[in-house]
């Protein structure tokens, strides 16, 4: 099945076209964004996020955004840098290119693009918390702090800026200040699992183990597939002498951590082969293994965006979701399969089996459709 899907994924482009596309992406990835041309000072002074995108940039920008949302960061960058070459410092392209570099963990380049964005559109500081994240990731904590303060001055309730600001204060050895800021994050969004996890870690570091445990457990409730909260829960339980519970949390941590590590390694492969369905299918299996149904659905959606008309892929999605016990997801996958594989006999045979025991009418209809398309029973 995977080999079939991989084959299908490569259909439609010649090796030469593929090579040329790959070279263009490689050139974009190897480009230093400092070499991009600059607009004259004040050129974008009147720009606002509501401003219409110039006609000639609409399609390239949309294409780059599509590539970005499908996880093809190299292609997204190629498109965005081409826009910035044609229209220097065009703010939406600067912003999106900065975000794309962030996804590639190229934090210096992220900072370069966001700083240019702020020069072009200084009124939009409230949207640039990612610049603080980039400084933070570069270990430039005083700069991160200064930038988060600017973002928060413009937008005091920015949850992500508050979170980043809290972590920066923690890195500056200001644990109590960090806790206070995380408290503010949780006032604004109590369901912020990551904020609970960081709170747990800081409390643990400060020796407030009972409180750390409560925060770690809340983080786990909110995001049961994140290894960090299981780790912190286990460490806090062990510190409190609750060894049996600690061992249970540790076992879950080890399972999640192994899965997380493998997924990170597969994601690295996807940077250069974002349409590799075999890699995505392996990630589906991992998410299924740890019971992360939302993760499974997200990956299947990503796969079907790559090959939207691929009937075999739709059958695969239904198989996976049904086996994972995701009734809602399987129902949606069955409907999609009906639509995509309407003229394929095997589709209806599979649907007949799917509807058996669930919907007698649709089961019969699927069987009739199968036979009408030439399928044979037995």
């Amino acid at each position, binding site marked *: 099945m995977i080999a079939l899907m991989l084959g299908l994924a490569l259909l439609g482009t010649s090796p030469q076209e593929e090579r040329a596309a790959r070279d263009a992406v490689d050139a974009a990835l190897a480009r230093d964004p400092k070499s991009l041309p600059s607009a004259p000072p004040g050129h974008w002074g009147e720009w606002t996020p509501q401003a219409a995108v110039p006609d000639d940039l609409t399609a390239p920008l949309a294409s780059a955004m599509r590539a970005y949302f499908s996880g093809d960061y190299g292609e997204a960058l190629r498109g965005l840098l081409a826009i910035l070459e044609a229209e220097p410092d065009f703010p939406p392209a600067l912003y999106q290119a900065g975000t794309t570099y962030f996804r590639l963990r190229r934090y210096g*380049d992220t900072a370069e693009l966001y700083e240019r964005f702020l020069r072009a559109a200084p009124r939009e500081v409230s949207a640039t918390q990612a610049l603080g994240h980039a400084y933070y990731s570069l270990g430039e904590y005083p700069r991160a702090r200064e930038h988060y303060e600017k973002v928060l001055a413009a937008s005091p309730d920015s949850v992500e800026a508050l979170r980043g600001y809290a972590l920066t204060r923690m890195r500056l050895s200001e644990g109590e200040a960090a806790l206070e800021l995380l408290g503010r994050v949780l006032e604004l969004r109590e369901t912020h699992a990551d904020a609970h996890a960081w709170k747990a870690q800081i409390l643990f*570091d400060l020796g407030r183990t009972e409180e750390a445990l409560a925060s770690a457990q809340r983080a786990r409730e909110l995001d049961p597939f994140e290894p960090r909260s299981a780790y912190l829960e286990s460490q806090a339980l062990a510190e409190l002498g609750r060894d049996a519970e600690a061992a249970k949390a540790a076992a879950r941590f080890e399972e999640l951590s192994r899965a997380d590590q493998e997924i990170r390694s597969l994601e690295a492969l996807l*940077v250069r082969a974002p349409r590799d369905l075999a890699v995505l299918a392996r990630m589906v299996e991992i998410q299924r293994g740890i019971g992360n149904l939302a993760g499974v659905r997200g990956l299947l959606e990503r796969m079907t965006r790559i090959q939207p008309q691929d009937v075999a892929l739709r059958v695969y999605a239904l198989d996976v979701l049904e086996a994972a016990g995701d009734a809602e997801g399987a129902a949606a996958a069955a409907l999609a399969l009906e639509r995509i594989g309407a003229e394929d006999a095997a589709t209806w045979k599979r649907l007949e089996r799917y509807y058996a025991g669930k919907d007698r009418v649709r089961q019969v209809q699927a069987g009739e459709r199968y036979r009408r398309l030439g399928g044979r029973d037995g």
Partner: protein
Amino acid sequence: MIAHVLAAALSIAQEPTPAPAKPQPLFAEDPSALPGVRTLSGSREKRYIIEANGGGLVLADFDGDGDVDLVVIDGSTLERIEKGEKGEPPRLYLNDGTGHFSLSGETWSMPGGRWGMGGAAGDVNGDGWPDLVVTEWGPDRLFLNQGGKGFREATEKAGFQGSRWGTSAAFLDYDADGFLDLVVVNYLAFDPNEISPPGGGCSWKGYPVMCGPEGLTPVHDQLYRGRGDGTFEEVSVPARFRPAQAGFGLGVTTLDYDNDGDTDVYVSNDSTPHHLWENRGDGTFEEIGFRRAVSHDGSGKEQAGMGIGCGDLDGDGRDDLLVTNFSGESNALYLSRGKLGFRERSTYTGIAGPSLHSLGWGTALADLDLDGDLDAFVVNGHVYPQADNPGTDTSYAQADHLYRNGGSGSFSLEPLSDAPPRVSRAAACADLDGDGDLDIVAIELDGGVRLLRNRTLPAPSGADRAAGPHWLRVQLRARGGNRSALGARVRAEWEGGARTAEVRTSGGYQASVPAEVHFGLGHAPKVRRLAVRWPSGREQVLEDVAADRVLAIEEPAD
């Protein structure tokens, strides 16, 4: 008049004032110390992970003349492997006593193996002379010291098992039988025919790079019980030195983390959880890295785990651990709480942020400025030549780092020396010129072996040093086969400070150091109390020990 005065004042203000003198880095590279000594590690392009880790360094007094000699463990190339040719041989460089080294004569020559990695020195046959183990991508090897006159290869009878990719090795006496045992740390199952070269899908920051270690198969480490006659028996399974999951092992240190009198083992694993092996005192081990919070960073993330520094940072008598990591991760400092385990305190001690851009390898916790507390050095260098491409936030060659201990539990980053950035790998630390401060020898990948001379004390010895800083080197001579007293603990107390040190030779990453302990004493001219706990369990106390010397102590008879 007022205008005139103001103008004069302004002109004075505008005069350039002399810049304050830039503090001199603590170390200076000495190109005359190891002239022309280079190592080989595959292609410069680093198409495969086997080419990225570099060779090893073993420091010990092999010829018994009282100074520290150096074995350089050298590598090979995949082309040589394909042709069935041997790798570059390990080589002994003898010290003239001033930290200048020359290649030893024919009697010390060793044949090339498959692809040398690291090694360790220890007296495996009880004749009083340090022997040499070399780890390889291939069978590990043993060279017996012939009374300080040369080496004789004794691999065939040594009892080493298998043909793996060994990295670091450490001698210890885990079963307290008086004979040296051996831990060999292994990395991964490497077959160039089964691993994609660059362009085969592996990427980093958008660039195609060599593959691994993630996605490859880690290999179990090995524990050998020494018989005291230069032969070993692999006991990994019966001694339960076998974790549920193997790691990509790179670094090793021996330590008595729980101060119960037997030797435990800590292994740093690349991208997989580190292992802390607690010696149960009955000939078996238990892996407790997770339980003691030294398997991951403080938030439960596996790190790249390269080298290990080990020492009593805060003077509480317990060994703390520093693990060097990949770029984008910070080096991890684990402070010991004894039997309770460790706490990762990299952020709060100033280690984390400054190490974020570097990829660290060789390291040690040692009193580099002789002020009485332990500092850390880390030599750095990326694994990917592509690190010099745009947007990586790092570089292939990187500066060496000195983390100077401020004395209050926090460190400040300083350049280790005024040398340019290098692609460094293994490094080891010892008093190489006999002046009392600790020098460093480091391997530059595809480059030279460098000596970094410590400038804290002026060589030569004999200069007026009344004002200090002072120091003491202690060499123990135990009774029985473990003559160099591996595992012994020495506690020194002096005016203004106290610290405990353990005798070990494991040197962090593919390196081994002399079997002795070193104390910086600041301005204290003597150690008020020096307490030794011998591997036999015997306790011995010396009082009012004069500083600035190498003190040899024989274990007393019953």
